[in-house]
């Protein structure tokens, strides 16, 4: 009886092994599931309704970065159920919210008034404040404002005066009116020559309406500041620094996603606020990128230089006293930890 050669089996199995290994790819290891820990509830009081401005918060929530950090963050738009604006500093000081978003000016004013609030990070690292005029009106620079009517709101008033001062224009020669209509209607109707605006907001609306415009960015005239810083109370800073750090890390991650993919960020914002128009938000996001993540900086970063500048403008306008210590209004400690500075 002939037996098949024993080597044949080995040869066959080797060949099969060889063929298998040629197309074989080891399966990716399954990441270990983390044991669920109870999430720590936190709230953040935003300074406006949901827009692309807060895309980082939105992305952090939607992408689960807060959850990953063990946080359950409630994002609160500035307008409550009755449509009344909730002032973030007041809410945070009252302990109704853990985090708040406000401008550096508001924060300095509140702090000068004795409120224990401290800025921990900036959303926009340059001021988006600008003056908006229609193209063809010849209003392109501060000197063109002489004899014109300008409506401005809040801190823009101070900024505009600072710009005029910086460019050597007598502020009394400009008719500066407090703004009551927050739409672009007064401008487009020709009722006023210029209105204050955020470069990240109104221009896109005009563009969409097909209206040509001129922008006078205050920062171009040496007037700068933080339009939206994230702040906490001194108590939170002292007693819950790890939560602050975790919150900031997750939020920054959210803003990084927004910068990486503006289209995704615009989609998210519209999800949060269906009244928004996607194209506008997308444009606004693109305009926001240089503010969110400017040259050589990191997301959320603040600088003593800009704080000093922002303070100087307020001081010169006599909004805050001369003995105000601006360095107490903010802390870089979290940014330094997060970015290994």
């Amino acid at each position: 009886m002939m037996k098949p050669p024993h080597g044949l089996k080995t040869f066959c199995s080797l060949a099969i092994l060889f063929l298998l290994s040629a197309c074989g790819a080891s399966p990716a290891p399954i990441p270990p599931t983390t044991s669920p820990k109870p999430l720590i509830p936190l709230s953040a009081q935003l300074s406006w309704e949901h827009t692309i401005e807060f895309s980082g918060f939105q992305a952090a929530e939607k992408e689960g970065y807060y959850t990953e950090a063990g946080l359950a963050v409630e994002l609160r738009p500035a307008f409550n159920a009755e449509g009344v604006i909730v002032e973030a500093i007041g809410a945070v000081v009252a302990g109704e919210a853990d985090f708040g978003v406000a401008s550096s000016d508001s924060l300095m004013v509140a702090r000068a008034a004795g409120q224990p609030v401290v800025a921990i990070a900036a959303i926009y690292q340059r001021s988006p404040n600008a003056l908006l005029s229609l193209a063809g009106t010849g209003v392109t620079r501060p000197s063109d404002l002489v004899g014109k009517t300008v409506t401005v709101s809040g801190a823009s008033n101070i900024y505009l005066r600072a710009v005029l001062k910086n460019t050597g224009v007598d502020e009394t020669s400009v008719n500066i009116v407090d703004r009551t209509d927050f739409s672009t209607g007064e401008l487009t109707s020709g009722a006023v020559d210029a209105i204050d605006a955020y470069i990240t907001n109104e221009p896109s609306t005009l563009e969409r309406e097909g209206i040509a415009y001129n922008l006078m960015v205050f920062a171009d005239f040496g007037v700068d500041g933080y339009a939206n810083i994230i702040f906490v109370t001194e108590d939170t800073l002292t007693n819950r620094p790890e939560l602050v750090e975790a919150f900031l890390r997750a939020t920054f991650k959210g803003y990084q996603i927004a910068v990486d993919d503006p289209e995704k960020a615009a989609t998210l914002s519209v999800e949060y606020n269906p009244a928004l128009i996607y194209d506008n938000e997308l444009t606004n996001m693109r305009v926001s990128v240089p503010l969110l993540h400017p040259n050589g900086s990191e997301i959320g970063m603040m600088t003593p230089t800009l704080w000093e500048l922002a303070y100087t403008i307020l001081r010169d306008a006599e909004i805050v006293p001369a003995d105000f210590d601006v360095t107490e209004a903010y802390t870089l400690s979290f940014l330094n930890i997060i970015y290994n500075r």
Partner: protein
Amino acid sequence: MSQPASATLAIARSIPFWRRFRFNLIIFFVVLAVVPLALISFINISQQIDQAQNRVKEQLQSIAELKTNQIDLWLRQGTLALDIILSNSRFEQLLVTRIIEPGILSATQNTTLTRDVRSFVQSNPYFREFIVYNLEGIIVLASNPADEGKFVTLQPYFTPSLNSREYLQPPFYDLSTTDLTLVATKQIANTGGQIVGVLAGKINLTVLGDIMTERTGLSDSGETYLVSRQNNYLLTPSLFANYQSQRAYRSEAINRALQGESGDGIYSNYQTPAQPVIGVYRWIPSLEAALVAEVNQDQVLTGPRQAQLNNAVIALAVGVLAAVGGLLYANRLSSPIAKLTDAANQFSLGNLRQRTPVTSGNEIGQLAQSFNSMATQVELRILETQAALERAERADYADKVKSAFLASMSHELRTPLNAVINFTHFVADGDTGPVNEEQVELLSEVIKSATHLLNLINDVLDMSKIEAGALVLFVEEDVDVTSLLKSVMSTARSLIVGKKITLETDIAPDLPRIRADRQRVLQVLTNIVSNACKFTAAGVIKISAKSVGGEVIMSVSDTGSGIDAEDQKLVFLPFRQTKAGLRQGGGTGLGMPIAKSLVDSHNGRIWLESTLGEGSTFHVTLPVKDQSLQPALA
């Protein structure tokens, strides 16, 4: 017999296919053919792919080198352009005045400056805007008048532009335009060589885009592009992505290059879904950007893939051929084996004539041949055995019939014969009335013939008993040979009546008594003596006996006709009579064979010495005390 045969068949039929020759050989052939082919093809194609990849990498390297040089050249153009602008001393003079003492310039001079600066932009598409700022960072002159009065203090190029004669600001975000901006600056000095301000040109990136999107020998799937360190956004358009769609572009190559590394690799590109590409990358410090040149891997692999396909087809064809070859070869091997197996099965089932065809001269042919010759041998043996058995059976049957016949004969024949003899005696003796001489003589003839017939019957009976091995000796311990001889002597005397024969005896006086069947020994001696009397017309018959070494030797010699050499051989064979015997007539031809058989059964010997015409001598020896002789049943 049939049980193991069918079991063998069952085993033969139930071999699973994977153990069959055919399957194994096909697999063996296919593996033997395809695996080396696949291996060679694999190595070959790997090499081809390697070569193709290296070729492409080299090509991409040289393209990247070319692009880098083009970028350098293009950037130098900027500085050169600023130099040329400032080399116009009249313009520079006015510019310095505009910076230091703008108040002393006439309206015409200011207009000239503005016109000049605008014409630079128009005549030099390299720049999209020129600005001139003083040491405080305030723009004093701009091709776009709206920019005059603006502060550049917070712009990234401001401080470096004050610190070096000329400076190139890598792409950055200018708040008033959301596009990335590239700025070249050159310091402006007064006639005393003192720095008073800076001329800055915002560079038009379109040309850079043109440089990068020019294919320069790249295939359709190839492209070169620049990714800025600023948010990983594209600095120049990509052929496969919407440049306008600002978003981060990431890939292994981009990340490495943005970390300042240069190199090449095979990786997934920035696209969604990511495409496998071969690329080279390098860090361009002046632009703070990653330069990437890459082509889709599919493009590179087209050749090798085609080869791979070809090889696969060839391997398939070879595999099929090998399988067919294996099948044919297996058939060549297994069909004679199958036939052999069938033949063996048939043979074992009893078909002895079954043979298998010898179709080849190889080992299997040899095996078939061996099987055939074995079968022939086995068949022969079996046939022989069968014949022998049949013969034996037939003989046995005949023997039985003969014995039965003889047994009845002995009874049925001897009884009437005895009656014939006895009644003839009565008649011849005159018991039934007077009989004359002639009648007595005739009646004597009757008696003589009847007695002969009776003897004949007795002889035949004896012979048949002997042949059937049914002869039983009635062995006695002390048989007196001398008295036996005397009895024989008296018989001889009656037989030689009327013949001129002298009866002599030479019997040793000390003959021992022997262990034998008295009657049978007497029969032997009587037979011999009767023959001697019968074949001797005249002369001497001598009976002698002596004891030698545990044996008794008895001899009967005559001076009769003698037996020729031929006939001497026949004497002891049954139913064979010597020529003399035949001539003499009468007799059965059984006497001597019976005598020999009886002597043999006594473990004795019988032989004769004879010369034709001179006489014969018969010798009989018998052992004195042969214990091997079984005594008769008591």
